[in-house]
């Protein structure tokens, strides 16, 4: 039978504690969990038929639950759902091949957790505000626009749209700079995404110390006071899903 890997855990001298926890936990579809170790790192796995590896909502939630519970006690690297290997031996070899990268990533996330900050705007209002700040533009600055060819008028229209988009992105960059400054004293790692949707203009994934949660919330409250037209959603702490930077070979 195949084995699905939930996470790679830094065990050090806590094998007993890990085993005790794995006995209590259940994996996908109530499967038993067990560990496969190589030196001081352990893969937490359960048996599964490859055909049953379906990314359904219940499976994903059960999978995430295991990672969430483990992360409360151990430093770990969450593994992408669907990482299946044929046997314990294959897993041990995989851990051996990737040991250096695994250790490097574990050091990066030790005693740290992930938070997510989403920033939302009202797309129509934001669009109107941005348009108001961009002067009507002609590619021929000396011309009033009359007598232009249809191609020149087309280009002028495109240029106006382009300038509005650029202005909008510049405004988003300013917010990102403010976020970076506001959180700087917490020493986080950031991963930003811009314009995820028309309304969700910024996603900021943060990796920072477990003890920094209250300070982070305070910092977000201050940011919200500054940006009254935006809405903010801060979630966490999460296991470091987005800060594991290597591919298993």
């Amino acid at each position, binding site marked *: 039978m195949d084995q699905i890997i939930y996470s790679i855990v830094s065990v050090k001298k806590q094998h007993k504690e890990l085993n005790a926890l794995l006995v209590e936990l259940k994996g996908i579809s109530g499967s038993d969990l067990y560990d496969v170790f190589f030196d001081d790192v352990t893969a937490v796995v359960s048996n599964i038929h490859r055909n049953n590896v379906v990314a359904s909502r219940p499976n994903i*939630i059960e999978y995430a639950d295991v990672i*969430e519970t483990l992360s409360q006690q151990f430093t770990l690297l969450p593994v992408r759902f669907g990482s299946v290997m044929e046997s314990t031996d294959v897993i041990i070899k995989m851990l051996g091949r990737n040991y250096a990268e695994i250790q490097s990533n574990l050091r990066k996330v030790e005693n740290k957790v992930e*938070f997510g900050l*989403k920033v*939302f705007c009202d797309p129509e209002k934001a669009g109107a505000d941005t348009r108001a700040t961009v002067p009507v533009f002609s*590619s*021929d600055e000396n011309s009033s626009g009359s007598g232009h*060819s*249809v*191609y*020149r*008028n*087309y*280009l002028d229209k*495109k*240029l106006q749209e*382009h*300038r509005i988009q650029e202005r909008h992105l510049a405004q988003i960059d300013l917010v990102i700079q403010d976020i970076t400054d506001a959180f700087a004293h917490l020493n986080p790692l950031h991963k930003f*995404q811009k*314009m*995820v*949707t028309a*309304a*969700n203009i910024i996603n900021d994934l943060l990796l920072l110390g477990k003890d920094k*949660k209250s300070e*982070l*919330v305070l910092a*977000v*409250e201050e940011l*919200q006071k500054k940006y009254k037209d935006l*809405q*903010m*959603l*801060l*979630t*966490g*702490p*999460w296991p470091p899903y987005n800060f594991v930077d290597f591919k298993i070979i």
Partner: protein
Amino acid sequence: MITVRETENLLGYGEGNEINYRRDSLLIIATCEVLNKLYRSLKSMNTMSENKILFSTGSLDEHSEEISKLTTNEESRLRLTPDNADSGLAKLVLTLVDLIRRLVEKQAMRRVDGGSLTDEEIERLGETLMKLELKMEELKEHFHFTDSDLNLNLGPLGDLM
């Protein structure tokens, strides 16, 4: 928690109906068990979700709806099957062509904005971009594609365009 009585009502059993005690009671008990398990798991999911929200302004329902757009845009999925191989391939090709067209357009706008083009070059650029866009519209119409059909959803990365 759902009781046996409530489950009987849900299943349509009421007074006056004859019940085969052995078979139906087992069914009722089993149904109770399933419903209660579902209730417990839903309750724990909700609790977990609530504990994770540290700060929020605006409507959570609206935020949730916005976030779900990343994963539920079924129209923009590429579904290649033996029956739709030609239109599926056309969709993929047109998506890539449109993406390149938009990138070229963006780069052209930067050049115009930079002020380094002559009047003649600007005129030619406008003509080229306009014809490209018209040709793209023709192709979309020919294959019965809309803009949202060609905006492939890349899951966690958001929409292509």
